[in-house]
């Protein structure tokens, strides 16, 4: 049962989890975007490999969408936004890398503990994929929670979405129509978020969430 195809799928899905960890401690926004592009690239490979071993041609389209939109277009657009906002050299204060890494590791353990017993009867390929996908989703959420900058929030959201696509591809693929609509909604979300980023900057001269909190007279504890 443990053949090469399974091992490669396992490796690629695990690769996504590792890339998610990479995302967690990137302090510089440009680097964060680059790692996100890498994350999407690994997703493309993982989905493409799933298409190959499942003999599911429509998954190639999914992989193609991931490559074009998430690995190329969205990172390019984000780079442009960051440059136009003039924050590409900004160092974002990432509170305790060690703490985030530990929390991330705990989340991965949690994902595996949750997924493996639930899917005991499922295909082992889908099981591993689902566990890793849940881990990627949780790490994306962790990224969104720990970051201050609005652009980082966007990246966290996109990486979370990558996790969803991984789950869908593993579970014998979701219908293509759904996949395409999800891809487009993510693209629309990017556009809307991009516009909002500029609007926010116009108002507050910053896209740092703390500046907005200060504006709302939110007391920091």
């Amino acid at each position, binding site marked *: 049962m443990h053949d090469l195809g399974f091992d490669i799928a396992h490796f690629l899905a695990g690769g996504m989890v590792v890339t998610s960890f990479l995302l967690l401690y990137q302090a510089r926004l440009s680097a964060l975007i680059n790692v996100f592009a890498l994350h999407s690239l690994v997703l493309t490979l993982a989905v493409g490999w799933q298409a190959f071993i499942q003999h599911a041609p429509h998954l190639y389209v999914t992989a193609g969408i991931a490559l074009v939109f998430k690995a190329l277009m969205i990172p390019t657009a984000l780079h442009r936004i960051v440059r136009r906002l003039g924050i590409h050299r900004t160092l974002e204060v990432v509170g305790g890398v060690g703490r985030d890494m530990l929390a991330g590791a705990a*989340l991965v353990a*949690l*994902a595996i*503990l*949750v997924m493996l*017993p*639930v899917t005991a009867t499922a295909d082992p390929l889908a099981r591993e994929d689902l566990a890793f996908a849940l881990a990627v989703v*949780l790490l994306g*959420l*962790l990224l*969104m*929670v720990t970051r*201050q900058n609005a652009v980082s*929030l966007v990246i966290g959201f996109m990486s979370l979405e990558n996790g969803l696509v991984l789950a869908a591809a593993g579970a014998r693929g979701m219908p293509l129509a759904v996949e395409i609509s999800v891809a487009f909604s993510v693209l629309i979300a990017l556009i809307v978020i991009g516009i909002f980023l500029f609007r926010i900057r116009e108002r507050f001269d910053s896209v740092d*969430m703390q500046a*907005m*909190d200060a504006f*709302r007279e*939110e007391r920091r504890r």
Partner: protein
Amino acid sequence: MILSLLLSLPVALLTVSGAAVFAHRHPGRSRGIYSATLVLSTVALCVVLIHWLGGHTPATLTLPIGLPWLGAHFRLDALAAFFLVVVNLGGAVASLFALGYGQHEPAPERVLPFFPAFLAGMNLVLLADDAFIFLFAWEFMSLSSWALVLAHHREVANVRAGYLYLVMACFGTLALLLSFGLLAGPQGGYDFATMRAAQLTPGLAALTLVLALLGAGSKAGLVPLHVWLPLAHPAAPSHVSALMSGVMTKVAVYGFIRIVFDLLGEPMAWWWGGLVLSLGGVSAVLGVLYALMQHDLKRLLAYHTVENIGIIFIGLGLALAFQANQMYASAALALTAALFHVLNHSLFKSLLFLGTGAVLTATGERDMERLGGLIHPMPWTALAFLIGAAAISALPPLNGFVSEWLTFQAILLTPELPQWMLKFLAPAVGALLALSAALAAACFVKAFGITFLGRPRSPAAAQARETDRYSLAALFILAALCLLAGILPGLVVDGLAPIVGLLNGGAHLTAQHGQPWLTLAPVAEVKSSYNGLLVLLFMALSGSLAVLLIHRLASDVARRGPAWDCGFPESSPMTQYTAGSFAQPIRRVFGSVVFQAREQVTMPPPGDARAARLEVQLQDPVWDLGYAPITAAVIAVSTRFNVLQYLTIRRYLSLVFGALVLLLLGMVLWR
């Protein structure tokens, strides 16, 4: 075949709705729409009646719409056919009335599109044979009637009524949804045939009963779920009020009967009947007491709906109690009484609401204190209203008497029940029923006397004119049906026999058409019998004899003298007996206990020219004890959680994240 014909009618009604939306500036649209609904309802009525006379074999139909794995199941059996008659009769008469009444509607574009849709919704509920279609049609009916309640949305009271109605309708549908969920079981057999075959454990069955009682009871207006009804029903235009009060509450009763008597099967414990019985008794008395305190004609009628729904549920509760003890003959009597009252209430409540609509068009007033003396300008409306008032007060020879008499007959059979609780409860409910019948009579003496007799209390009432002939035709059709059902009750009872048999394991009352002189003898002739025809003949004979004698012995010219000349020196109409004066003795006896009624007289000091004031304060015990704590709790909780509205994005994200991680952890630890 018959089912597809009947199903095409709601579709046609919806098309009419659509047409009403688009024909929105056309001058003759109101008449066109109501003619269309009149024709469609009459066709539906005729089709169902022909099917009924032709042997009423159940028809089923499954369409590939609705939920993909379920389809849409429709079925026409005796129970559905009976309620279809009630709905479409009410719909046809209300449409006929609206042909004249609708001309006076200030905002027809807010009424016309929803009226046919409302009728279509009610028809669909009755034809549904799976939970999805049933709930869909039920919600459709609720929402379209909600839109009609808000037809005159500029009045603040109507907006509140609409809001309360929406909340209660959502609650009711939730309860029904849960009860269907229990019936469907974990396999999710949502069509009624599967539910009928399934066996529930006693605990789950009792829970289903309670949920059905909450869901259907909130739509029907059972105390304590009635709070929305007296606000919402009067807020709609009168022909819609007639439909909501006379017909939609019956659809709710249908829902209850369908779930409890048909889908659940045999009742599993005697207390089921006891619960329904006591709720019915409380509704009957509280409804009529509320009604007595009202001086708004439409709201008074709406409270009477609560009372009559109580009477229907008394019959249903008795039937449940008898069925739980395998006394099917007695259960048949109780069920017949309940179903008969369903028909009767739909007839006379529609009649009374339509009569009020006629008064409203003629005077623009609903407040009885500003009406009076309308019998002179509107003699025909007054006659029809009087017949309706006598019928709802359960006076023979009209139909209201027959069904309440049958309910009493069923109560008289309860000593044979083995459970002591029921032995005590049923006579108590019988006493409540008797009390409510007497109070209803008092209430309608007030309603008719203050509105139509005496002298006009306002210029508007003085300038009233008789209503148009469409409205009068509608009123007299209903009045004639009230009389017919009253003097030929045996025919109605025979017509109800197949439904009673369907719900009662095959047992129904003995056929009445063989009885001599069209007598109604539900149990045995030696025990009790009633003959409406003979009562009518006797009343007609003795009445004409009395008139003849008086005119012979006194004088045969009609004299017109000053009204109530004795002790009536002042010519101002304000010195007349008012609705408030009429209700005062009853308010003193019952109101001080039930409503904590307080009267306060403010006398100005000597030398002050201001008028003295008499103020009456009433408190609604149901609202104060049942609803006020709930609203207070909701407000307290939402104030406490108001902080959550003003968090930062990161806090929100952290909340989501924390909740997800907690749930996942729970899953891991719990397994």
